[in-house]
């Protein structure tokens, strides 16, 4: 029993304090305390301390978490000093047995409780290979192979860097990049289902083509990628930007083929880019009153936080009558670990209508529209521990976060290399790229140019 209480208390401590970057509640400011002890750790400068720092998967502790548990035994969990002392006490150990001390792992940004997360002992130097960069640019951004003639021209060029830049710019305007590569990058965000979302769907609940077009539009032409979360427009099949509502392309049908939606019915002043398209609301919210799935997908797709993996848990102190708002029993401690983040994350989405059976499905186009009276929860939302009044505020806050920048860059980095940064030097390059986004005016093209210029993209080890 004591162990259970202890586990819960530790979990509570870590989830509400270590994981809260700004110590918003009456809990010890563990995140701040951790970074007071280790101010130069990448965990404090380029990423947030996540659940997997101490947990194999909440509430199960990993080896580092268990070592922390031992040091806390009998301690005062609200005592910041004791918390910091415990961190220091186990820092010279090697909790995960990977031959690297906990301190080394903390300072290198790896996980001291995960033997697969290893310290980068790579001391090799690299040289940027321009020919390699050019070939990769052709394959990755043009969907093509460099030809013999192109390689001859490249070899003959005086300014190879300029040659690569020009080739890249051309690729980023290609049909392949705009209408294929970017679409495939968007698949996990949009999650299309042909049977219910295509123009010929058997049961059409929305049209995802709008989502793909909007994504590609924002991610090209040096536009501001923050519009992924703030665009109040849509893009039609001819590339025209539409600011008004878009009527259904097909009327209501019930029979062998069912059509209950289409177009984009949401008013412009309630739009938040990709997370308020009719498809996004329809396929994620479905019949839910509290659209947790919609919120968690937005969190995962655009902020890189997958709550199902214990990522991005930043509990928000809800008043009692908002705990377990939809009466699903989520106020229990084991559920509250995630729901104290998830529920306030979802409240701002709750005034957007999902699939609701009613006469207006036949005579209107209600799915994805705004209804301020749908639930009483809209204004009680929170993102990263900060209160937000509605989805507009949610989106405007989200687009300015480091998490959003990192997610955009990680998507593009992974699209290029089929992996994220894997070494310390690549991690540093990665950090530089996302931190440069404001100076680059949040242009995806600028991010891509920086990726192509990185050693991770075209560096070869000096052997």
């Amino acid at each position: 029993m004591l162990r259970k209480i202890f586990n819960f208390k530790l979990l509570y401590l870590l989830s509400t304090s270590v994981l809260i970057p700004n110590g918003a509640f009456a809990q010890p400011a563990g995140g701040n305390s951790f970074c007071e002890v280790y101010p130069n750790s990448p965990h404090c400068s380029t990423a947030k301390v996540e659940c997997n720092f101490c947990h194999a998967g909440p509430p199960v502790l990993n080896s580092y978490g268990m070592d922390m548990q031992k040091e806390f035994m009998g301690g005062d969990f609200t005592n910041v000093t004791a918390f910091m002392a415990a961190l220091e006490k186990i820092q010279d150990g090697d909790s995960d047995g990977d031959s690297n001390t906990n301190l080394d792992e903390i300072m290198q940004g790896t996980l001291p409780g995960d033997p697969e997360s290893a310290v980068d002992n790579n001391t090799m130097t690299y040289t940027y290979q321009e020919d390699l960069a050019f070939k990769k640019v052709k394959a990755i951004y043009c969907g093509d192979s460099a030809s013999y003639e192109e390689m001859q021209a490249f070899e003959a060029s005086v300014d190879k860097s300029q040659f690569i830049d020009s080739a890249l710019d051309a690729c980023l305007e290609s049909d392949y990049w705009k209408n294929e590569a970017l679409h495939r990058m968007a698949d996990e965000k949009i999650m299309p289902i042909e049977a219910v979302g295509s123009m010929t769907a058997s049961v059409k609940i929305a049209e995802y083509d709008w989502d793909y077009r909007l994504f590609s539009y924002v991610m090209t032409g040096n536009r501001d990628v923050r519009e992924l979360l703030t665009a109040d427009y849509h893009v039609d099949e001819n590339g025209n930007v539409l600011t008004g509502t878009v009527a259904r392309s097909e009327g209501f049908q019930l029979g062998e083929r069912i059509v209950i939606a289409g177009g984009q019915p949401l008013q412009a002043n309630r739009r938040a880019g990709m997370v308020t398209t009719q498809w996004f609301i329809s396929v994620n919210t479905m019949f839910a009153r509290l659209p947790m799935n919609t919120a968690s997908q937005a969190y995962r797709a655009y902020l890189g936080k997958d709550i199902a993996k214990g990522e991005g848990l930043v509990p928000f102190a809800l008043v009692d009558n908002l705990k377990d708002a939809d009466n699903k029993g989520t106020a229990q401690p084991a559920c509250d670990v995630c729901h104290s983040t998830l529920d306030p994350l979802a409240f701002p989405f709750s005034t957007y209508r999902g699939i609701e059976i009613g006469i207006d499905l036949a005579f209107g186009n209600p799915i994805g529209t705004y209804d301020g009276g749908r639930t009483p929860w809209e204004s009680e939302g929170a993102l990263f521990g900060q209160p937000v009044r509605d989805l507009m505020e949610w989106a405007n806050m989200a687009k300015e976060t480091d998490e959003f920048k990192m997610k955009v860059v990680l998507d593009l980095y992974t699209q290029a290399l089929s992996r994220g940064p894997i070494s310390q030097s690549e991690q540093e390059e990665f950090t530089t790229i996302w931190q440069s986004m404001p100076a680059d005016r949040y242009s995806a093209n600028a991010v891509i140019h920086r990726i192509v210029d990185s050693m991770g993209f075209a560096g070869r080890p000096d052997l």
Partner: protein
Amino acid sequence: MKTLLIAFVGLVFIQASCTKSPTSFIKTNTSNKPVSRVDDTTRDGSIGQDGVAAESTDSSNGSTSSGEPGSMDGTSQGNTGSELPETGVNLTEPSLYNNVVWKRYRALENGMMRALSLSKQQLCNELDQFSCIDQIHLFNLGGNDPFFAAQGKRAADPTILTPVAVERLAMHACGNRIELDKAAGANAVVFTGFTLNADPIPADQISPLVTTLYQLFLARNPNAEEIAKLDAFAKQGIGSEQFAKTACFVIATMYENIFI
């Protein structure tokens, strides 16, 4: 029904390919750990045909080349996957210098189409109707189909069936080009200056053909060693058409054409 048919066709051809494939470009991994894809590369980042580093310098143009073709009987000229060189590097560990990029389905398709002057329709269709790239082998060539197959993401690395898929593609494409050039006669577009029905192969036609194929597929000239290997193969008593098809296949399926 259509999906089932496509799946069935795919399986049939995969099985057929497994029994026919003369080469395979991915090493057998018996360790259950990812095979290092970079530590066994050459200085220019490409990988030898048999997974072993191979490097040479083409003195004619100064470029570094690598990836020597495997022999035609299914074995390689150099070390095999089970005879790794003494590099002092543990080849079964994930590499920290992982910067080789898989040339995925569209880049591979477009490269082959241009190399062999084939249209998308001419390149490769299983049962003459299902696109090798967009339908049958899409996932194993690095793509994903979210709409009909619910594949929200592509494979991060080549799959165990990727070699089969690449070989199917190359075999179709090379065969189709040869058939077209045979029919075109003097108007052939790739196998020009090469007598496809000669036996034995005219000795003076081997090197130019090899050079042409290297330029078309790998965007560089072959070095002397690479030419010599295919020249030796050509003199083993096979006919011109068989040599042309095999040389095309071997060069098209080299690591260098699949990884960058």
